[in-house]
Every structure is written in structure tokens, then in C-alpha cells.
């Protein structure tokens, strides 16, 4: 039996989820979230909606219904940012933008940190070398996906670069130091640590 939701006339004290999303720094200024009429065009074109429990329209519905449980719902992690919903929406809404904001809200909590912990090896290479290198643990799948040619490139990267007349891909010490300072200043390091703390706690 579903519970009856009674809308009291009392003044709203707290901002509802939709306005929290709209006021988020990541939200485009003219995001059409409140103009959504639940037409479902987004869902009809969304690959994630087609192949999983994710439903683009439903995401917006729950945000508009002020259903904060969506932040902890695993389903928001099914979107892979193809932006198709964004490109077709007749009222200028963007489910993928809303999703990104919801994920950021989730990351403020443990539940979201767990979701992104598998990306930490990216962060590590960035912290160590100042480079966005593909971590070792992904190499196996990439070999399967891209085949021999890609494998060759990875193994002989140094020579290929030399052939092309390129310098070493590693940063000079002073550049590395600048990157390091920047990562410190913008809170990247702190954030990575927080995410790792959640992993280590369990």
C-alpha cells in the first residue's frame, strides 16, 4: 500500500531538490528542468534506458518530486554521458546534466565515493606523474577491445614517439611541481584522500 503524500500549505523552509539542482554551479543557466512535461522523448532515445533499469524521464520525475533517495540510488550511475537526451529535449532540459549534479551530490556522501573509487588509479597517475595515463588495470580489456595494433603501440610507445620526433611524454620536474601545487590548491588531493578513506574503512 503506498503512503498518501499530503502537501501541507505551510511555507517551504528548505530548498527542494529541483532548486538545489538548478542552483548548482554545474547547472546551465537556462536548464529547462522545471519546464519538463514528462513527455518521455529522452527515454525513447536513451541507450542506458534501453538496456538497463535506468529511465531518463524517471530521473527528472524523481527530482521534481523532491525524492532525495535518488541521490543514493545506484541507477544514476548508469548514464554514460552520450548527451542524446540533451540534444533532443524540446524544453531545453538535460537529463545528463541533472545526472552529473546528482552524482556530485552522491559523492558528497559515502555512497557516491564508493561509486567512483575504481577511477582512483587515474587520480594516482595524475598525482604521481602529472599525466593522465591509462592505469595498468585497464590495459587487459583495452587489448581485447582494440587488438594487436593497440598492444604494439603501448609496448613500443617510446620508439614511436622518437620516430615522430616527439620529446619524452613525462613532465619536467618544475612542471610536475606546478601541477602538484595546483592539485593541492584546488582540493583534488584532499578529495582523492577522502575517497580512498571510504575504501579503506570497509
Amino acid at each position, binding site marked *: 500500500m503506498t503512503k498518501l503524500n499530503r502537501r501541507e500549505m505551510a511555507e517551504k523552509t528548505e530548498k527542494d531538490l529541483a532548486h538545489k539542482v538548478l542552483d548548482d554551479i554545474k547547472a546551465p543557466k537556462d536548464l529547462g528542468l522545471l519546464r519538463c512535461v514528462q513527455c518521455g522523448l529522452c527515454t525513447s532515445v536513451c541507450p542506458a534506458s534501453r538496456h538497463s533499469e535506468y529511465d531518463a524521464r524517471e530521473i527528472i520525475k524523481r527530482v521534481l518530486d523532491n525524492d532525495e533517495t535518488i541521490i543514493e540510488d545506484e541507477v544514476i550511475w548508469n548514464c554514460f554521458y552520450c548527451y*542524446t537526451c540533451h540534444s533532443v529535449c*524540446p524544453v531545453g532540459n538535460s537529463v545528463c546534466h541533472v545526472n552529473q549534479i546528482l552524482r556530485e551530490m552522491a559523492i558528497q556522501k559515502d555512497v557516491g565515493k564508493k561509486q567512483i573509487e575504481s577511477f582512483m588509479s587515474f587520480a594516482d597517475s595524475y598525482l604521481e606523474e602529472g599525466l593522465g595515463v591509462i592505469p595498468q588495470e585497464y590495459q587487459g580489456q583495452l587489448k581485447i577491445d582494440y587488438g594487436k595494433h593497440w598492444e604494439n603501440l603501448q609496448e613500443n610507445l617510446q620508439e614511436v614517439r622518437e620516430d615522430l620526433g616527439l620529446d619524452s611524454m613525462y613532465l619536467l620536474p618544475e612542471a610536475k611541481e606546478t601541477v602538484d601545487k595546483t592539485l593541492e590548491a584546488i582540493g583534488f588531493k584532499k578529495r582523492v584522500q577522502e575517497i580512498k578513506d571510504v575504501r579503506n574503512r570497509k
Partner: protein
Amino acid sequence: MSQKNRIGVFLCHCGGNISDYVNLEEIEEKLSENEEICSIKHHENLCSLEGRNIIKDQILRENLDRVVISACSKITHGATFEKYIKPLNPYLYEMPNVREQCSWVTNDTGKATKKALSLINSAIESVKYNEPLKKIPTTVKDSVLVIGAGISGITTANSLAKQGMKVTLIEKRPAVGGAMIQVGKVFTPDKMSEDCAACLLNPVIDEMVHNENITLLTNTVLERSTRNSGNFDVILRKKPEYVNPEKCTSCGNCTHACPTFAPDEWNEGLNSRKAIYKPFPQAVPSTYTLDDEACIKCGACINVCPTNAIHLDAIDEIISLTVGSVVIATGHQRFDTSKRPEYGHSFYEDVVSQMQLARLMGVNGPTDGHLQVPSTGKVPRRVVMIQCVGSRDQMPDAHKYCSKVCCMVALKNANLIHSHYPDTEVIICYTDIRTPGVYEKYYKYVQDNGIQLIRGRPGEITREDDHMLVRIEDTITHTKQEIPTDLVVLSAALESSEGTIDAAKTLGVPLTEDKFVKEKHPKMQPVSTDIEGIFVCGTAQGPKDITDSIIQANTAATKISELVNGGLEVEPFIATINVKKCVLCGTCIDNCRYQALTMNKHSVRVGPIACTGCGDCIITCPEEAISIQGQSDEKLEASIAGLLKDKPDDEQIIIAFLDDIGNVSANNMGINRVACPSSIRIINVPFINRVKYRHIKYALTHGADGVFLGEYPDTPKHNDIRENVKVMKKHLEEDGINPERLLIHSVFIPYFRGLANQFKEFDEELQVLSK
């Protein structure tokens, strides 16, 4: 004003409404010092018949040549006193509003008396500049140009012609009837049936063809239009008449002989037609026509024509007309669905538009009325209709508005399919179904017939094996669905037609942001345009159905009839041009958005109906050759001088120039007894633009502490006015006057409390400034 005036001043008590708050004895005493005032009289109620006798008696006895009546607002009793001052010319009086704008809004008798005296003095100074004027009788030529011969244009033409007017009805296409003749079937909500559109339209067309007051010109467009003293000189261009309609017997030999093909517009490009053709069997006029873009001039048709009716070297015809009014009935076109490529209209044969479906079902269509899937020629097993294609869509190139008719169109066509092919399943995919009024009954009827409705907007159509596949989420059941179907029908938005945009451009009529013809007022004046004498009806003004188009078409005819038959008399407050100063530069003509000014050989002429007396031309004229009759710059300056006459140094005075809306708002302040600072002295001007920098400077250098401009913002000149105020503030600075002493504010009739607050705030600010 060298010679002395003989002015009479009449002070109305208004049964205590004025005399309880204003010391009229004191005013009389002050006024008696003015030697141009030959008579001062009081009365309890000047608007009474007794009052009338007093005024008339004094005018005759004292030989008065000007009259000032200190009483209520001109809106209340202006017309009364216009009559009471006979035998004086009705424009030789002024009415200082001592009731609404003084006694009712000022609590202190001393202050009220001072203010009343200054208002009366202003009227005395200003009335000296009043000229004896006459209302201008005007006539509008009883000939009308109607552009577009669809249901709207034909309806207007018929109505006008029946009222005795001469109508020229032009149509860009070779045949009349517009979208209605093409659509085949129309629904009738009260009968729950689909009726033959041509059967309903043909009697209307017949009436048009047989009415001697109507000249029909097909293949004709409006090329140019110039305003000429209230009339429109128009140039029409008629395509070459390759086939002589007098000789053509519609035998069709030419079409058989013609080797060239072109897409058939009548069938929305579903099939081809020849380069020489008849648009459709029932076309009016019933002549054959030649598409000169497709024709290769081989002459095959000439050889077979039994009546020698074809001339390939015909040239176009330029027609010149003068008409009194113009009706834009140029209709709509349908949204180009290729702008929504995800629906594949341009590359899937089995995706069609509602109009194409209508043609496929039309007995005079490419399949003789048999519904066939284009790729297979078979009856479809299922048809899926998609609503809101290009409507309710804020993507670039699409339209934000609802096209208003598509829900009904889809329901009609769905029901039509259902009744002819009961085995064919029809599904309508919708966002909202909009069937207002009795149309809702038709919607329920269609549902009862088993038409399925899915609440969802599909985003993708693909081809799968021998059929199409529509992907949609049923948002009610929350199920993601794939729907195989033989035919997909897109309900494309209605949008402004090319012809509408062209006509508006040629006529100088503004368009809305959606590119439809902009009405003078969308609610109150839905068929008038900003240009007096140009009207709009039907889908040229916005999406609407046949019934609404007909209503609007008849309304447009009525409005023209008012102009032609109403014996129009207009107020004389229009622009006049000083021919000695005018250098015929034409700046005023280019700037007049009402097209009221025209170049006439060696002078600029003002159209009395078109001119609104807005005074914009006064500002643009580099030679200062233009003035508004009865509202000269000098008169305005005299009003200011009067307000500031004998002003003590310690009294703060703000001159508030209010436009007509602002003036009514200020009157409402009085009617509702909302207090207003006694420093506020109102001068009513027709438009804020009428107040020049010289007036503002004069006021601020002759004792006024501040100048307030009250402007109704919902006018096309709003931005210009605001810009102009910025410029004037700069001038003030250059002249060493604090620009903060000039303030512009928006005014609205019901917003009188707001206006009172603005007055109060400005009054307080100025008190601080002056310290």
C-alpha cells in the same frame, strides 16, 4: 501673444468636493490681479444646466475668447464643457484638474489652495496658445486588397463585397482554396463525422467567383506598397498568362503532350505532375497553368492545343491599384520535418506528414483515395502518428508554441482510417491532447472507436525488415516500447508562410517573435495591425482552425466597414508640417512607424487617420518643421511657466509629465483618495516623446525642483523613449544641472498606489538633493 486675451475663469465647487479642501475665495482674489482675466465665476456644479447658462452668459457678456474651467478631469466632463462654451470653438478651453489631481489627494487646505492656483495658472497660460480647431472628417476609399485566397481571404472578400466594397483578391498559387481545399476532409464535432472539405468550401468559392465586386487574380503577388494620404498605392505582379483562360477549354491535350515532370504540390510531392497542368480537377479558376521553372519550352503543348490558347512568350503583368485597406490572409505553411532528422521524413518513404496522409486518403489524391503504404502499395496494418513535430519545441528552427489544430487533425485522420480500414490499427503518440470545448466530445468518440493513444514523445524512428520501428516510452505505464508499424505520420507544426512574411515586409507590418503578423493588441485588437488600414486574419496571424479563421475573416471585414461607412471624424491633434521650414529630407517619413507621412510632390503629407499625434516626428525632424496641431512647443512651455508662476523659494515643485495612461492612473489616485505630495504638478501629454529637452531644461531653470516622466511602457517606442531620457540626462549634466532631478518611471492604470509611492519617493529624494 501680443494682443491681450479675454479669458474667463470658472471655478467649480463640485458640491464641496473641491471647495471643502481648496480656498476658492483666496484663488479668486489672486486671479483678479491678472488683467487678461475678464471674468471669474463660482458655481456649486458647473456641469449642471445652470452652470451652462453662467458660462454662456459670461462668454457673450464679457466677449471672452478663451475659457478655463477649474473642475474635475477632462475625461469626466471634457465633452460637457466643449458644448457649454458654444459659441466659442470647442478647442478654446482648458480644464485644470483640481478635483482628482488636487483636492482629493491633498490633506492640507493651505497646500491644496496653493497647488490649485498653480494648476489654474498653468491652464491660463496654456489656453492662450489654443487654436480654434475642427475635428477632421475623413473618408476611406471603399476598395480593398485581400492577399491570399484561402478560406480566410475568400471569406473576408465575400463579406466586404456584399457590403458594397470593391475587392481585389490575389492568390500566389494558380488555384484558390488554400489548405482547406487540399485537406480533403474536415471533422464536424456536433455530428461526430468527417465531412468533405471541398463541399463546404465550394459554395463560398462560388459566391466569390460570381460576386461582381470581387476581382480574383491568381498567380499574383504583392510587389510594393506605399501609403498615400490614408490610401495604399500597391503594385501587383501577375505571372505570365501562358495559357489564355478565355480560350482554354480544359481539354487536357497539353498535359498529355508535355514531356516534362515536376513534383506535384497538390499532393505534397507524393507524385509528379507535368510542367503544363491543372492543379487539381476541381481547381478554380478551371484553367490549365504552366510552371515556367519546369517547362523546357519544347512547344509540344502548342501543337496539340485545339483552341490555340498557349503562348510560351507571354510576359508577366504589372498591375497598379489604389486601395483604402489591405487584408493579410496569407495563411501558414507546415514545418519542414527534415529539421527533425530523427524522424527520417526525408529518407524513409513510409514516413509521411498529416497533409500527405490527407492526400493519400483524398479521392482526388495520387491513389484515388486508397490508403496505401508508399513502399509496398498495400493497406497498412498499423499506422503510428507522432504529435508535436516542430511544435512545443524550443530547439532551434522549431516552434515553442502549440500549433493548436494538430490534435484534432490526428484524431480526424485516425478516425477516417478506422472507418475505411477497420483492420488497420491506429496509434497516436501524444504529449498532451488539446481538444478544447466541444472538440473534447470528438476525442472521446475517437477513443471509443478503438484508436489507441500512447502518452509519450518518440525520439527515434528506424527501418526494420519490411516496416518501420518507433521507439517510445509509454510514460503512463512507465514501459519502454518498440512499435513496429507500416506507416508513420508526423503531425508537423503550423508555421508562418513565406507569403505571410513577404507580405508583412512589403507592407511594413511588424511580425511576432514567431514570425506571424503582429496584431495591434493580441487580446483587444486581434485583427488590426500597427498600421491603420491594414488588417490580418486566419493563420497569417497564428495557428488556428477553420472556424476561428472564418470568425477572424469576418471580423476584419467588419473593421474595414467601420472605417469606410462610419463617417470617421478624428481629433485634430495630428502632426502638421511647416512648409517654409521643411526641406523634404524624408527623415520623418522613414521614422513614422504608423506610415502616416507621405511625400507628395513638393510637400510631406500627414494622413489624419494614420497619425496618432505621438510626436515622434517632431524629435526626428532636423529643421524643427513639425508640430502637433493644438499642442505646440510654446503651449507646453506656457503650461510649465504657469505652474511655476509666483512660486515661493521654499516651495518644492515637481512637474510630472504623464502620458494618457499615467494621467488616468493619477486620476485613480484621486478617486481612491490616495495622498499625493502637493509638490506634484501634472501635465498630461499624449506621449512622453512629446516632451523635449527644451521643456525639461526650461522647467528646471525656472523654479521646478524635479521633472517626472510617467510612461506606459507597453508601446513600440518604449526603448527609444528610455534611450532619449539617457541622452537628456547627459545634456542636463553638460548644462550644469543635476541629472537626478529628471526621473522616468513606468505607469499602469491600476497601479496608482505605486505611482503615488514613486511621487513620494521622488519628492523626498529631491528634498535631500536641494539641501
